[in-house]
């Protein structure tokens, strides 16, 4: 099953199971979403439950909040992560805080799906990775799936979670395939996945970097370096235990994501690891992420900005250089 199909399947399965689940987003109906993720859902569930919206990122998230407070389970699609910048007031000041400000009277079971990711030259406003912002906000849960099975199982759990969940998908992962069980198996939020076992160094990676880390690990293997790869999958709440355990085993860590390195998710992971695995670390935690620039249009520049397998490999070797 493709990553794209996995997301679609989770949505369809949830909608079949529960009348209260419905979708709102730009061009998600007849067109099936600008990434084709919602294809077929309009035909199966109709215009009431698969709602094409105006270009109103504030209002559609806000409408999702309101419907969620009435006990429905809306899934809102923000076409590109870059446009989360428009929804942020509703997400951060409203969705994340209604339960708290009401002293526990309200629940906001809203899921916001969005996608981003560079590598196809869309330019500076269509491929940013902004998950770090949401991790900073109490009241939100944040998910970033790197595989079809994870996307399917985590999206289901996100929809049925009683809190607002921001669900990040990655543009370049939509076509990737993997065998999945016939029946959808929910994956609990807050549990990391050890993607590859290894003994020399732990690479904590998200989204596309999981795959780039795998490529790097193969090369490292050739040089006799055994790389363990852990995908947190849920960035909030963060499964610190699994991450720390792995690093205590390998004594070396690399954090890799496509987002800008500075103030990216890797900073939080590094801060946690240096605190909780201080005595185990044999080398500084290396961070791999986008260089400090907006995303350029010209492919040569864009590729230079975003982290490649070679960057992960270099970081891995750097952690091993000292011992």
């Amino acid at each position, binding site marked *: 099953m493709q990553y794209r199909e996995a997301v679609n399947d989770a949505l369809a399965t949830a909608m079949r199971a529960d009348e209260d689940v419905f979708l709102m987003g730009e061009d998600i109906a007849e067109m099936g979403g600008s990434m084709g993720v919602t294809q077929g859902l309009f035909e199966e569930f109709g215009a009431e439950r698969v709602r094409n919206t*105006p270009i*109103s990122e504030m209002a559609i998230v806000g409408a*999702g909040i*309101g419907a969620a407070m009435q006990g429905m389970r809306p899934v809102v699609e923000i076409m590109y992560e870059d446009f989360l910048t428009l929804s942020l007031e509703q997400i951060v000041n409203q969705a994340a805080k209604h339960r*708290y400000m009401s002293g526990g009277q309200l629940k906001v079971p809203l899921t916001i799906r969005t996608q981003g990711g560079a590598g196809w030259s869309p330019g500076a406003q269509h491929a940013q990775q902004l998950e770090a912002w949401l991790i900073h906000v109490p009241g939100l849960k944040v998910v970033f799936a790197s595989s079809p099975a994870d996307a399917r199982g985590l999206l289901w759990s996100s929809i049925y979670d009683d809190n607002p969940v921001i669900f990040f998908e990655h543009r370049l992962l939509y076509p990737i395939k993997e065998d999945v069980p016939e029946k959808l198996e929910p994956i609990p939020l807050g549990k990391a996945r050890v993607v590859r076992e290894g003994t020399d160094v732990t690479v904590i990676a998200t989204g596309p970097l999981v795959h780039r880390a795998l490529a790097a690990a193969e090369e490292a293997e050739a040089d006799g370096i055994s790389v363990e790869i852990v995908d947190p999958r849920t960035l909030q709440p963060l499964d610190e235990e699994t991450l720390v355990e792995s690093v205590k085993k390998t004594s070396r860590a690399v954090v890799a994501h496509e987002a800008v390195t500075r103030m990216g998710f890797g900073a939080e992971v590094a801060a946690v690891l240096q605190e909780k695995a201080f005595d185990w670390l044999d080398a500084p935690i290396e961070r791999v992420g986008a260089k400090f620039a907006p995303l350029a249009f010209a492919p040569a520049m864009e590729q230079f900005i975003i982290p490649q397998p070679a960057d992960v490999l270099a970081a891995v070797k750097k952690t091993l250089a000292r011992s």
Partner: protein
Amino acid sequence: MAKVEKKRSLSEERLRDFLREMLLIRRFEEKVEERYRAGDLPGFLHVAIGQEAAEVGVCAAMDDGDVFGSTHRAHGHTLARGTHPNALMAELYGKLEGCSHGYGGSMHLYDVERGNLGANAVVGGGIPSLVGAGLAFKLRDEPRVAVAFFGDGATNTGTFHESLNLAQLWKTKTLFVCENNEWAESTPGWQHSPVWDDMSKRALAYDMHAIKVDGQDVERVYAAASEALDHVRSGGGPVFLDLETYRMHGHYIGDAQVYRSKEDRDEAAERDPIVRLREKLELSSEDWEALEEEVHEIVEAAVEFAKNGTDPQPEDALKNVYA
């Protein structure tokens, strides 16, 4: 039946109920000003003295099951929709017995049981969720209405625009109530909105049905709100209710109003909705004294209740972050 009754001119008895409610709100907020100045109340507060007719007229026209969201100036709506003065005062004192259990405060009043989905401190920020609630009512075919209260200043926000646009497009069961009190903090209408002298023009951009009425005349407000609610409830689409009202006091308690002319403030007397209603009802001074007495006791009792309320424990701060 209820609706028919609403259309007819109101019985004197009903008008006396309105007067009692308006006076209760007035004396409650005067007490709040007093207690705040005395240093009893934390945070910062906004009273709506002068806007009681707008608050009571609309709230009295709402049915059980209707929901609403308000603003930083929400004491009146909260009381008028049935929250006990004790619970409201306790919230202002930051007690667990408060309507938001001490988590919200004056700008975040909730009482979900009575349809209060939250007062919002972000201007415009609360509006979209009422579109979502109105959407849920429509999808579930419920005879309920979601009422969004906001001020003239809020009509300048993008959130307002996207919300009305979406509501009209989808014919959600939402009533938009603009309390045009001629000020946005220190900024007079003419300085913040090109249509400040006729806010109902905002509705033209959406082909939305609009009703404009003198917000200082509780009878007219009640009649207009009843008509609007019927329209929305029966699936006729959202309505924009433009209430011309007046802020008699400062923007917040303690506001020196350096920006406001004496003349402007002197208007207060003539435009006081309580004076107007009292005169219309030709209340004898005995009846008036009795009313004052009754209200006075309620307010004093509320203060007593609040003062004797329970302070949250520091650690309670970590509760209610997630469902």
